């Protein structure tokens, strides 16, 4: 290790330095860039939850989602570490990490696309029947149903809605993750909500009615 825990105490203690989080992150990035794996591990620990959660959401509902999301998150951090020279100094790390993770999750979804493509027609033909069945279950979880509905949207809309509403990310940071202008974030969110509303009305009518009555 290049540094002792004294110079970056969060490695040893996990303590949060509320006063200078950005400066501390920049210092850790600088150390990691020089090959200090402990500094990078501290950064991973600080950001692993949103990275894992975004990967989980983007991978969609499946038996292996948790394990694959874990793989994606790990790969994202490993790739980020190996490409730290491409990271712009002074920028917050989280948007860059989330962008890498989202890219990897999209690729995983595409490699899983063989399975999904086979299911697509079947799904479209029978989705109404299955949706009604799913919604009739007493133990229905609105948030889970919302996730199912979101998976019917384009990946671009999904990613925007996950970042904004599931990960509670400010639009400015979203613009960095998505590499688009702030104004485009607003319009993408708007169109995403419109698309979501159409899906809810058509395929999740009970959930939609419930929302309207709240």
């Amino acid at each position: 290790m290049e540094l002792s825990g004294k110079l970056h105490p969060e490695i040893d203690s996990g303590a949060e330095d509320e006063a200078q989080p950005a400066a501390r992150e920049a210092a850790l990035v600088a150390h990691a860039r020089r090959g200090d794996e402990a500094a990078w591990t501290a950064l991973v620990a600080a950001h692993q939850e949103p990275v894992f959660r975004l990967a989980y959401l983007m991978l969609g509902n499946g038996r292996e989602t948790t394990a694959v999301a874990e793989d994606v998150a790990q790969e994202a951090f490993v790739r980020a570490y190996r490409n730290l020279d491409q990271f712009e100094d002074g920028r917050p790390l989280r948007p860059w990490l989330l962008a890498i993770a989202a890219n990897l999750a999209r690729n995983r979804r595409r490699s899983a696309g063989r399975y999904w493509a086979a299911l697509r027609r079947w799904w479209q033909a029978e989705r109404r029947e299955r949706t009604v069945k799913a919604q009739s279950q007493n133990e229905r979880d609105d948030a889970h149903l919302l996730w199912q509905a979101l998976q019917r949207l384009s990946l671009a809309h999904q990613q925007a809605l996950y970042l904004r509403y599931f990960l509670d990310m400010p639009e400015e940071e979203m613009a960095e993750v998505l590499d688009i202008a702030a104004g485009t974030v607003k319009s993408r969110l708007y169109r995403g909500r419109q698309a979501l509303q159409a899906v809810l009305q058509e395929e999740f009518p009970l959930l939609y009615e419930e929302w309207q009555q709240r």
Partner: protein
Amino acid sequence: MPIDEQQLAEIAATFSYPPTPDIAGRVQKALQPRPARPRRTQRLAWAVLVLLLLASALLAVPTVRAALREFFKIGAIRILPEPALPGEATTTPAVTIPAADRVTDVAPVETQAPPSATHLPTRTLLDLAGATTWEAAQAEVGFPLRYPPEHGLPDEIYRQEVWDPGLEAPVFILVWRDEDRPSEVALALYQIPLPYYGLKSASLSAISETLVYEQRAYWVEGPHRLQLQTGEVAEWLFVAGNVLIWAEGEVTYRLEGADTVAEAVRIAESLAPHRDK
């Protein structure tokens, strides 16, 4: 009534995620056993040195020297002639390698298809992923995507990600379905804006030279193997159909599904950009 943002956020906030695993620990393990990776140029220099040493050693052995082969290079694709595939009649080579495209390479020791060989990626729609739209695809590439007007716009477009730092141009595959068997692909057109995409391995008798817009192109007829390189992963695929490969500028085109070379060339020379009316 439109969806209320606040309500959406409140419901999303109740989403039950699985516990976040110890990714930091996994990353630490993944990083520790590996020494720092040398830079790409250093790796390339080492690889060249090793290849030169290996080639020098092999050239000293007459039997090995006879096994040296040449491969064709066109755009982003290399075509490595190999002995006839099992069951394929050995005929007079249909083409000689032009000096401009000639590269000497050491023949692989193993000539059989690797066990991981799979079927042609574009034989059925089930093999494709990353569906996108013409507009989205066009917005992502720095050249006009083209299609054969006689076939109309493709039924589907698929985006193939090539994730490699500094080499992130996607490959787009335009697909026209078989009208009689809609789940299968009648025609597929790859548009490849990359310096390197794949290595084809085909019987020399299956490779013929042709012209697209008076530029050299290659027609690979019948079964052959295609090695795709994505990042650090190389995957061998078994391609059962005919393929025309040509390059225009920095874009390599790979047309799959034409029955004859004449048909393939006609399609290739008919390609036009799509213009919204």
